[in-house]
């Protein structure tokens, strides 16, 4: 059992860049920043009375009265402050970047809360001095965070450490298990932080954003330390184990604090869109075929299922068992996928996007007009019965032994299994002859043809398989939401799906799920911004393509293609090669 912590060979390089003049003071800055953050966390933050809840009340200077009675975001700030001070004094590899991460976390937490306070309290007086009360917490903490970032940035030109620690199989399994359980708890905590936004709980959005900021800062710091990359490497070594454990962990969500009917429904919706996004990921991410009308396949699957469900408004007077319905929906959608794909074979790039957009619009218009009586037009098809198995309606709560699962938990379980299956399909296809053919077509279609790849059938397969997956998800969607209307499948939904794929990272398995999750959880948690949702969405698209086009979890191919300068940490092998050449 080896226990060496290897650092990529290089002496601490000279600080360079614009922050070079600051470098000698880096430690001082960092310590100062940490101390200020600590102080800021303990100071009062608001000069007016807030609602009861996880928010600091109006108070005079309470620094000495309640130094240990901090909770919520102030506790996070205290921890970050202490961590910053410790890292400034102890030499740890890559601490510059870690401090940067922590610093940004502090800034994010502070900003989230400050902006809410200012908006709710009506002006900057809320965070400085008004009505005889004094509260400088936000400002002090903000300055503290900025100093930490500054100090960390001046030091950030160090190599990223590569952990080479290995152990025997069971120890690594245990580590993975612990990691994934922690991940589950973290996800549950993020989802439930701040509670649900209601009239009484005005600050739920703030609490959520602040928590998100803290989590983000923590993850950034861990990523900088190399821990996350190491865990990823370990899970690569134990692929099968990781996948199985992750599946069980995901299924355990209903048992955590996020196991409420509300979150089960949200999770089910995320699942539907995640599965659809993975299907789109095949078309766009792997094969590079920009499909702007993709949501139509989800709609086709949903309408087929609706018409076979025995609902009153259905075209057919028949109730087909659910598993069979899923298959039929998938097949019908797949056929349409081939239909859409065929004329597009000679069309490239931008024009392909427009053609698929046109197909999508044809679908929307036709279903709006209740073509063939299949779609119910403006009346939609309501009244679709819930799935049931073994006598249990999936809509009801379930009691197994002494455990009570919330309503909708069964739907959640089903969608997790569906998403897992779709992920498996994607993963298998990507690392196969067909997947390589798709990627080759995306990189250089003519060269792919010259290598003997029959681009026509291969592209149609991409459309077909993508559409089949969407159709599959559509059947679930129909039964879960109970009503299928053309309104759910308009152009904007196609863009949202595309955004989910891009945001998450094209061509990767977790990417689409991550993207779909973000795009669904944020509107739920930030209800007060509902009116601005689409506006922010549009702006987000612009910003992502400008600053991080490869997405959050980039595929190695895509990163190389879209962001060739974003540094992949050198593996020991290439570093040696680079040194030798």
């Amino acid at each position, binding site marked *: 059992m080896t226990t060496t912590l290897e650092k990529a060979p290089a002496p601490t390089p000279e600080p360079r860049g614009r922050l070079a003049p600051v470098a000698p003071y880096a430690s001082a800055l960092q310590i100062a920043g940490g101390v200020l953050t600590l102080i800021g966390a303990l100071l009062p933050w608001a000069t007016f009375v807030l609602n009861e809840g996880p928010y600091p009340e109006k108070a005079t200077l309470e620094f000495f009265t309640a130094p240990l009675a901090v909770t919520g975001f102030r506790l996070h700030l205290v921890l970050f402050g202490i961590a910053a001070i410790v890292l400034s004094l102890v030499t740890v590899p890559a601490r510059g970047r870690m401090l940067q991460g922590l610093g940004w976390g502090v800034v994010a937490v502070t900003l989230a809360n400050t902006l809410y306070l200012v908006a709710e309290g009506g002006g900057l007086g809320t965070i400085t001095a008004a009505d005889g009360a004094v509260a400088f917490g936000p400002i002090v903490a903000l300055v503290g965070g900025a100093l930490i970032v500054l100090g960390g940035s001046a030091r950030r030109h160090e190599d990223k450490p590569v952990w080479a620690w290995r152990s025997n199989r069971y120890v690594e399994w245990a580590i993975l298990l612990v990691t994934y359980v922690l991940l589950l708890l973290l996800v549950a905590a993020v989802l439930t932080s701040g509670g649900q936004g209601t009239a009484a709980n005005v600050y739920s959005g703030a609490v959520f954003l602040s928590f998100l900021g803290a989590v983000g800062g923590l993850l950034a710091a861990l990523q900088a330390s190399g821990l996350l990359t190491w865990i990823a490497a370990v899970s690569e070594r134990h692929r099968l184990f990781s996948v199985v454990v992750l599946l069980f962990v995901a299924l355990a969500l209903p048992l955590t604090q996020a196991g409420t009917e509300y979150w089960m429904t949200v999770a089910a919706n995320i699942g539907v869109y995640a599965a659809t996004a993975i299907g789109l990921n095949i078309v766009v991410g792997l094969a590079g075929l920009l499909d702007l009308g993709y949501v139509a396949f989800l709609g086709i699957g949903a309408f087929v299922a609706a018409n076979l469900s025995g609902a009153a408004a259905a075209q057919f007077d028949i109730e087909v068992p659910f598993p069979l319905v899923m298959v039929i929906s998938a097949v019908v959608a797949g056929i349409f996928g081939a239909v859409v794909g065929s004329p597009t074979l000679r069309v490239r790039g931008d024009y392909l996007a427009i053609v698929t957009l046109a197909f999508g619009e044809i679908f929307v218009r036709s279903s709006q007009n209740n073509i063939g009586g299949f779609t119910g037009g403006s009346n939609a098809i309501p009244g679709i019965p819930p799935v049931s198995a073994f006598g249990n309606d999936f809509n009801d709560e379930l009691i197994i032994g002494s455990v009570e699962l919330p309503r909708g938990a069964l739907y959640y379980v089903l969608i997790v299994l569906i998403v897992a299956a779709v992920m498996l399909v994607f993963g298998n296809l990507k690392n196969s002859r067909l997947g390589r053919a798709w990627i080759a077509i995306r990189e250089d279609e003519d060269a792919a043809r010259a290598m003997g790849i029959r681009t026509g059938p291969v592209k149609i397969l991409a459309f077909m398989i993508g559409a089949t997956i969407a159709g599959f998800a559509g059947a679930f969607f129909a039964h879960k939401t109970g009503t299928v209307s053309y309104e759910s499948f308009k152009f*904007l939904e196609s863009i949202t799906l595309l955004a989910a794929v891009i945001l998450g990272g094209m061509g990767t398995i977790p990417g689409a799920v991550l993207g779909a999750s973000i795009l669904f959880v944020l509107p739920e948690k930030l209800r007060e911004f509902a009116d601005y949702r689409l506006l922010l969405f549009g702006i987000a698209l612009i910003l992502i393509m400008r600053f991080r*086009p490869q997405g959050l979890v980039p595929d190695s191919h895509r990163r190389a293609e879209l962001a060739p300068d974003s540094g992949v940490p050198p593996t020991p092998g290439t570093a040696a090669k680079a040194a030798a050449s």
Partner: protein
Amino acid sequence: MLPTLLSQIVNGLVLGSLIGLIALGYTMVYGIIQLINFAHGEIFMIGAYGGLAMFTYLLPTFVQQQWYLALPLLLLAGAGVSVGVALIMERFAYRPLRNAPRLAPLITALGVSVALQEGVRVFYPGATAALPFPKVFVQGTWAIPVPGGTVPLRWTGLLIIVVSLVLAFALNSFVNNSRMGRAMRATSQDRDVARLMGIDPDRVIVLTFVLGATLAGVAGILYGADLGFINIDIGFQNGIFAFTAAVLGGIGSIKGAVAGGLSIGLIKALGGQYLPGGTAYDYVWIFVVLIAVLVFRPQGFFGETERVRA
């Protein structure tokens, strides 16, 4: 029979002229930087809203009531707002992605389109529903007598046709006969060589956006004045029509944009009248045309076939 047919032809020509104005913007921008500016439809929409804003909040009442004063001001305001937005868009959203792989500017354009549409909806008072637009022109209809009845042509419709033709003609002259126009054509053929010849491609590209936006802004005002109301959707719908028109006519060709626009207008009007499904499906026929053109004759009426290099 005949009056109905001719009425629909007239409707088609009016709509088609408007579409043509918007299509010119698409075709020129695509010709010069090979970008489908998805947000161009929104430029059209925002010109209309910009003009409305100026009219409602800035014009004194007596000016509002004299169409020959209000209309030119409206046109200026519409064009101005459109150009302003287009300049910001080009500078901050598209220019940084000049050399990025094609997917990036396309997605960005989608984002700009969504952001603009939502921005108007959220920030313009009352924009969540349709807003009335001042009918700043001679009202009424010219009843053209034909065998079998009359064919109505709204005076505003005639205005649209005339203005569109004049502007298209002016643009064509400019591009073919002026120094800047030559620079535009050179840049669209080979940007790097044009730069070597002393042309600043950035300025040329900005000019292209400005011209396209001006036409779209004018179209926005004319649209509002004709229809009497506007809503935030008009950008997306007319944008798709205009893009179809640009492709149908041959992307990159000015004649093509006009011809394509008129064709699309006619297809929509006549298709809605005579093809199965009626007006509910007129959009569908346009999309069918779009797909057919892109698949079977991507160079459109007047475009060049891609040169196959020896």
